């Protein structure tokens, strides 16, 4: 690119090109955290589903969710690494990160408040709404992420989460199976596709 003076039309083209470049730039491994969470939740929910059906007293099986602490550890390490290695910081990446951080915090708070509600009011049937609620929130986050990145697989993933939200109410005893399936369809597959797109940009 030269430093010479140029026409008004040419300057418009440069502005448009560069703004599009900035908007569409993705850094390598942008979806690594989502993919990790996808595999982790899919594996955990499958283990819980199998244990629930294999054990007579399956009340303690829910403690298996503590495995997800691994996800938070990985997220913190990865975010720190990305902060030092990225060649640019964009507002879209910032919004994307905040959306998923809010979702993560909500996923921690929801079971805590559900426990409180069960303890306070004794309505344990409320637990049946937890998995679909998480899938619905995940769908909303995917829709928002798809919109900011103009990335269609996230939109389809949001749709899959919406459908699984409904399916969870129809087959409440298979919820963890649908939660696992939801992670593969909405985080793992679109995550790998987004990383592939980012590889081309780098």
């Amino acid at each position, binding site marked *: 690119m030269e*430093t*010479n003076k140029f026409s008004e039309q040419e300057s418009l083209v440069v502005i448009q090109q*560069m*703004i599009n470049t*900035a908007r569409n730039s993705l850094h390598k491994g942008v979806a690594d955290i989502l993919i990790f969470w996808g595999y982790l939740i899919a594996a955990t929910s499958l283990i819980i589903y199998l244990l629930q059906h294999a054990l007579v007293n399956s009340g303690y099986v829910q403690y298996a969710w503590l495995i997800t602490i691994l996800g938070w550890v990985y997220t913190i390490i990865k975010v720190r690494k990305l902060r030092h290695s990225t060649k640019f910081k964009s*507002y879209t990446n910032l919004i994307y990160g905040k959306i998923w951080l809010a979702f993560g915090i909500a996923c921690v708070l929801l079971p805590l408040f559900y426990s409180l509600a069960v303890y306070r009011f004794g309505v344990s049937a409320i637990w049946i709404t937890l998995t679909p609620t998480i899938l619905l929130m995940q769908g909303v986050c995917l829709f928002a992420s798809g919109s900011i990145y103009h990335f269609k697989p996230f939109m389809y993933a949001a749709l899959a989460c919406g459908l699984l939200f409904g399916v969870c109410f129809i087959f409440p005893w298979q919820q963890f199976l649908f939660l696992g399936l939801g992670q593969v369809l909405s985080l793992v597959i679109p995550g790998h596709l987004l990383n592939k797109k980012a590889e081309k940009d780098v």
Partner: protein
Amino acid sequence: MFKPLDPLLHSELRLAIISLLIGLQEADFVFLKEKTKATSGNLSVQLDKLRDAAYIEINKSFKGKIPRTTCKITPQGIAAFQSYIDALQSYLNPQ
């Protein structure tokens, strides 16, 4: 009536730099070089000119042992870019 175009921005490379930075929180030298396809020397000179006009901030740091230069648009840079767009509109849609 045509508005005058800021001569500092009415240059292909400097306008490209500002247009990139307007959509980003910050970008490093390597990213700007890749996206503008400019040579290191030329990019460095143009970044200094934009910094002297207070349109951008340049921070030099180290990533391990490798030096790293990051650039960020300033409020003055944003205002200058907006004025440039206004002026450009007067040329493209003269009344």
